[in-house]
C-alpha cells in the first residue's frame, strides 16, 4: 500500500471476496464530452504557457545582455521550429486566458449551470482559435514588415 488512502478503496464483491474499488477519476467509464477536454486542456495550457514564459525570459535576458545574444535568440525565433513554438505558446496563452475568464465568471456565480457550460464550451474554442489566428497573423506580419523595411 503506497498511500494510506488506499485503505478506503477496499470493497467486497457480492460473493464476499475482497476487491479494490476504482479510484476517481476512472476516465474509461465516461463518454467523451467537450467540457472534460476543455477542463484538462486548461491545465495543460497553463503548463505550456509556463514553459513558454521561461523561454520568454531568455529573450528578455538576451535583449539586456547585448546585440550578439539578441541575434542568437532571433535565429531561434526566425527558425520554422521556433515559429511553431511561438504559435504553440500563443495558443496556450490565449486558451488559458479564455478558460481563466470562464473560471472567474463561474467563481462569481455566472454561467455555472450545466446548460450554460455546454453552451459556452464551443464559444471558448471558437474565440481561442480565432484570437490565436489573428494574433499570429498580426505579429508575424508586423515582424516581416519591419525586417523588410530595415533590409531596404
Amino acid at each position, binding site marked *: 500500500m503506497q498511500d494510506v488512502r488506499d485503505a478506503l478503496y477496499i470493497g467486497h464483491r457480492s460473493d464476499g471476496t475482497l476487491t479494490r474499488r476504482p479510484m476517481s477519476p476512472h476516465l474509461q467509464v465516461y463518454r467523451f464530452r467537450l467540457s472534460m477536454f476543455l477542463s484538462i486542456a486548461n491545465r495543460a495550457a*497553463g503548463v505550456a504557457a509556463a514553459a513558454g514564459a521561461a523561454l520568454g*525570459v531568455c529573450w*528578455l535576458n538576451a*535583449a*539586456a545582455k*547585448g*546585440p*550578439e545574444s539578441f541575434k542568437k535568440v532571433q535565429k531561434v525565433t526566425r527558425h520554422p521550429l521556433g515559429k511553431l513554438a511561438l504559435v504553440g505558446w500563443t495558443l496556450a496563452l490565449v486558451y488559458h486566458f479564455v478558460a481563466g475568464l470562464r473560471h*472567474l465568471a463561474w467563481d462569481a456565480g455566472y454561467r455555472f449551470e450545466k446548460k450554460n457550460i455546454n453552451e459556452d464550451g464551443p464559444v471558448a474554442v471558437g474565440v481561442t482559435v480565432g484570437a490565436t489566428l489573428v494574433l499570429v497573423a498580426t505579429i508575424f506580419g508586423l515582424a516581416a514588415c519591419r525586417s523588410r523595411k*530595415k533590409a531596404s
Partner: protein
Amino acid sequence: MNATHMPRMDVMRSQLSRARGLGSAKTGVNHWWMERMSAVALVPLSGWFVLQVMRLAGSSQEDVVEWGGKPTNSSMLLALMVLTFYHMQLGLQVIIDDYVHGKPHLPASLLMKGVTFLIGLFAVIAVLKLALAPSRKASA
C-alpha cells in the same frame, strides 16, 4: 452497544483521518484566493503585453533597449513577471497536489517552488538590467 462508548462525531470526518492529521490545514482558501487575484491582475497586464509584442515584433536589440528603458514599460514588465511567476507557482502547486501522492509530494513541491522562484528572479533581474544597464554595443 452502550452509547457512551461511541466516539463523538462533531465533524464529518473519519476518526482515522483526524488521528492522521489529514484534511484541511485551514490555509487552502488563501491559496485559492491568491490564484484568483493574480489571475484578475494578469488580465489587463496580458492585454498590455500583447500590445507591446505587436510594437516590438521584428525589432532590433537597440529598439528593445529603448523600449525597456522607459519607466512605464519596465514597471509594467516587472509587474507582469512577478504576477506571472507567482500565478505559475500557485497553479503548478495544485497540479502537484493532485497527481503526486505520498513521499514524493514534498520534494516535488519544493523543486517546483525553487525553479519558479529562480526563473522569476532571473526575469526581474533581466528587466532591471534592460532598464538600468543594458549593453548596447557588441562585445569584441
